[in-house]
C-alpha cells in the first residue's frame, strides 16, 4: 500500500492550511483570546490575507460583500462570546440572501464548555436559526473534514453561511493532516438537473402564452445564470423583471426590462405581474415585498412555472403549477435547446398594453426643485460612473431609489441586504467588494441613519486604502420610517428624526479621509465628477436632500400588487 504523505499539525495550522487549500485569499476578522493560535498561524504565512475590521458585524458584512461581488466564498474569523454575537447580524443577513460564507469562531476550551467560562456563549445554538449549517469541532482529528464539509455545504445547492466553532484547545492539539479531496454526505445531496417532463410542460406553456412575464430573483445571480437568462428572454421576446436581489441579471437598460417588481417596483412591472397569463419565476421566492398580499395576487388566473434549487421555496407563499427543482443554468440550457425548434406566439397586444402602463412614467419626480432630490443624485451617480460601478447600499429610502434609478447591466454589481434589511450593511459590504475587485469603482449609497450603524469601518478603509465613495443621502430622517409614519400614522414622526447629527465632512476627515457637503442641485454633478476622478481616496459625499421626498410607487403593507400609491406628481 502506498503511504499517503501526511504531516502532524496543530489545529490552528490546520485551519490556515484548509483555507489555503480552498483558495481563500482574504479573511475578514478580529482577534481575541479563543482564536489567538489561529491568528499566530495567519501571522506566519502570506497566502491568506487578513483584513482587520473594527467590529465583528463589519467582518461578516465584508465577507458577505466579498462573496456577492466575486462569486468566491467570503470568510470571516471572530473570537468566542461577544466576537461571535457581534457577527450574528451579519450572518443572518447572509442567510436571508443565501450568500455562501464561512464563519470561523473561536470557542472556550472543550473542558470549559458549559461552565459559563469567560467569553463563552453557545455559538452553535445562537446561530442555528440563521445559518445553513453549523459545526462545533470537539476533536482536532475532525477539523479538516469539517472545514471541507463547511465549504461544500456553503457553496452547493442553495448557498448560505456555515459556521465552524473551534474550541481553543482544539487549535493547540495536533494530528496528522491531509486535506480531503472529496466529501460525501448521505444526508446532503442537492438536486442539480431539472425534471425533463416538467421542463417540457413549462416550454409548452411559454409557447402558448398570450401575456407572458419573466420574473427572476437572486437565484439567477447566485447561480451565474445571467447569460442564459438574457438569451432566453431575448429569444422569447417576453417582458422581464428582476427583483431587488436579482437586479443586473438582465440588462437594466434593455427595452424588455420593465424595472423592479414589488412594494417599490415600477407600475408596469406590478401590472404585468398581476395580469400575465403565464409567469416564469426563476430563482425568486414570491416574498411579501414582491407580490404583496398573496390572496390578491391569486385573484387573476395565471399559470406559474417556478425554477428553483430549493424545493422549500416552491409553493411556499403562492401555489405553483409547474415546479422545476434544479440548478438554474442547467435548467435554462434545456429550455434553450427545446425552444430552438419552436416559435412563441405573437404577443404584440400584450406589449402594447405594457407600453401603455410604462408611459405613466411612474418614477417621475420634480426635476426643477431647488432642494436636492435624492433621485437626482442617483441618476447623476449612474451617469458619472457610466453604469459600471459596484453599488452597495444600506437599508431604507436610499436603497429603493438606488434600485430604481441605477440601471445595472451586469450581475453582482448591486450589493444590498434584501431579505433581512440590515442597516449598517453598506459600508462594510463595500469593503468586501473593493477587496474582491481592486481598482474597481465602488460606491456605497447610504443615509445619515444607516451609515452611523457601522461607521467605525471608516477606520478599516483607511488602514487598507479602500477608495470607496460614500454617497450619503442626508435628509435628517430615517426616511422610510418617516414615510410610513406620514402615510399610515397620521404624520406622527415618532423618533424618526435625528437631532445632533455629526458633521460628516469633519468626521470623514477625522478618520483620515476627505468629505464634501453638497447643498445645491447644481453642485451634485460636479461633486460626483470630482470624487470619481480620485481613484485612490475614500470620499464622503454628504448630500443634503429633500426631507419630505417619498419613494413611489408604493404598495402599502398587506395590499395587493396593483394597489399602488403613485407620486403626487403623476
Amino acid at each position: 500500500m502506498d503511504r499517503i504523505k501526511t504531516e502532524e499539525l496543530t489545529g490552528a495550522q490546520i485551519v490556515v492550511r484548509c483555507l489555503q487549500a480552498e483558495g481563500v485569499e482574504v479573511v475578514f476578522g478580529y482577534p481575541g483570546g479563543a482564536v489567538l493560535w489561529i491568528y499566530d498561524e495567519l501571522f506566519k504565512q502570506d497566502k491568506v490575507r487578513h483584513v482587520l475590521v473594527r467590529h465583528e458585524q463589519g467582518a461578516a458584512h465584508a465577507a458577505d460583500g466579498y462573496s456577492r461581488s466575486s462569486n468566491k466564498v467570503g470568510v470571516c474569523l471572530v473570537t468566542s462570546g461577544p466576537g461571535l454575537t457581534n457577527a450574528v447580524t451579519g450572518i443572518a443577513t447572509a442567510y436571508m440572501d443565501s450568500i455562501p460564507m464561512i464563519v470561523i469562531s473561536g470557542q472556550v476550551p472543550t473542558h470549559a464548555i458549559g461552565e459559563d467560562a469567560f467569553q463563552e456563549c453557545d455559538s452553535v445554538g445562537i446561530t442555528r436559526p440563521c445559518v445553513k449549517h453549523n459545526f462545533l469541532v470537539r476533536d482536532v482529528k475532525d477539523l479538516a473534514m469539517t472545514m471541507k464539509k463547511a465549504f461544500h455545504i456553503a457553496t452547493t445547492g442553495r448557498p448560505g453561511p456555515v459556521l465552524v466553532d473551534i474550541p481553543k484547545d482544539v487549535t493547540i492539539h495536533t494530528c496528522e493532516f491531509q486535506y480531503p479531496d472529496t466529501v460525501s454526505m448521505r444526508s446532503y445531496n442537492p438536486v442539480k438537473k431539472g425534471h425533463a417532463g416538467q421542463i417540457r410542460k413549462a416550454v409548452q406553456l411559454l409557447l402558448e402564452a398570450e401575456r407572458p412575464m419573466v420574473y427572476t430573483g437572486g437565484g439567477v445571480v447566485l447561480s451565474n445564470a445571467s447569460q442564459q437568462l438574457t438569451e432566453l428572454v431575448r429569444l422569447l421576446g417576453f417582458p422581464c423583471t428582476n427583483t431587488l436581489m436579482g437586479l443586473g441579471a438582465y440588462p437594466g437598460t434593455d427595452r424588455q426590462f420593465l424595472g423592479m417588481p414589488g412594494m417599490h417596483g415600477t407600475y408596469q412591472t406590478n401590472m404585468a405581474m398581476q395580469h400575465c397569463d403565464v409567469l416564469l419565476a426563476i430563482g425568486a421566492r414570491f416574498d411579501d415585498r414582491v407580490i404583496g398580499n398573496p390572496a390578491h395576487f391569486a385573484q387573476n388566473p395565471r399559470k406559474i412555472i417556478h425554477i428553483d434549487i430549493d424545493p422549500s421555496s416552491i409553493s411556499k407563499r403562492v401555489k405553483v403549477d409547474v415546479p422545476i427543482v434544479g440548478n438554474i443554468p442547467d435548467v435554462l440550457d434545456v429550455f434553450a435547446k427545446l425552444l430552438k425548434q419552436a416559435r412563441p406566439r405573437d404577443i404584440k397586444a400584450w406589449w402594447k398594453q405594457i407600453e401603455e402602463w410604462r408611459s405613466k412614467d411612474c418614477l417621475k419626480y420634480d426635476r426643477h426643485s431647488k432642494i436636492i432630490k435624492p433621485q437626482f443624485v442617483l441618476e447623476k451617480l449612474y451617469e458619472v460612473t457610466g453604469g459600471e460601478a459596484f453599488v452597495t447600499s444600506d437599508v431604507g429610502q436610499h436603497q429603493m431609489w438606488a434600485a430604481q434609478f441605477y440601471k445595472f447591466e451586469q450581475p453582482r454589481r448591486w450589493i444590498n441586504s434584501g431579505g433581512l434589511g440590515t442597516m449598517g450593511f453598506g459600508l462594510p459590504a463595500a469593503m468586501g467588494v473593493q477587496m474582491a475587485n481592486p481598482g474597481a469603482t465602488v460606491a456605497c449609497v447610504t443615509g445619515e441613519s444607516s451609515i452611523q450603524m457601522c461607521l467605525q469601518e471608516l477606520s478599516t478603509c483607511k488602514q487598507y486604502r479602500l477608495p470607496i465613495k460614500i454617497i450619503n443621502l442626508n435628509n435628517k430622517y430615517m426616511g422610510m420610517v418617516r414615510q410610513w409614519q406620514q402615510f399610515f400614522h397620521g404624520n406622527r414622526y415618532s423618533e424618526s428624526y435625528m437631532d445632533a447629527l455629526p458633521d460628516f465632512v469633519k468626521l470623514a476627515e477625522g478618520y483620515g479621509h476627505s468629505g464634501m457637503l453638497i447643498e445645491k442641485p447644481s453642485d451634485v454633478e460636479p461633486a460626483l465628477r470630482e470624487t470619481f476622478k480620485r481613484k485612490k481616496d475614500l470620499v464622503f459625499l454628504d448630500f443634503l436632500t429633500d426631507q419630505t421626498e417619498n419613494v413611489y410607487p408604493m404598495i402599502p403593507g398587506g395590499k395587493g400588487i396593483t394597489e399602488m400609491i403613485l407620486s403626487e406628481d403623476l
Partner: protein
Amino acid sequence: MRHIISILVENEAGALSRISNMFSARGYNIESLTVAPTEDASMSRMTVVTAGSDEVIEKITKQLNKLVEVVKVVDLSEAEHIERELMLIKVRAGAKEREDVKRMADIFRGRVIDVSDSTYTIELTGDGAKLDAFIQALDQSAILETVRTGASGIGRGNRILRV
C-alpha cells in the same frame, strides 16, 4: 389534520434541536416527538406527530428535508401504518381498589410492573386513543402520575424507511 412524520437523521449533537427549532421558528405545531438511535448507531429515527393542512404538511416535509443532517423524511399517514405509544401510569391501589384497578388493566392489556402497599404502576402500549381511553376508564382521583412517550410509527407491510 393529524399527521405522523418519520425522520431519519444523523445521530449528531444538536440534530434534535435543529429539528425542533425549525418547527418553533416557522410556527408549526408539534403534538409529540420521540427519538432514539436505530439499529445503525450513527442514525436516529424520530417520530413527530403534528397537525396541519396538506399545504402545511408539505412545507414541513420540505423544511425537514432541507436540514443538512436529515437523511430521509416520510409522512407515515400518507398510507397504511402502525403507531404505538407507551404509557406508565401510577394509580392509588389500596386494599379497596386493588382488584378493580387490576381488572381494568387486564381489559386494556396493561401490565402491572411495580407494586407498593398503596400503589400500582401500570405499563400500557397502544395508539394514543387507547391510552386516553384507559385514563378515562380509571377513577380520576386515583391517578397519581402519568408519563407517555408520544407516538412511534412504522409503515405497514413492505413499506420500509431506511437508507
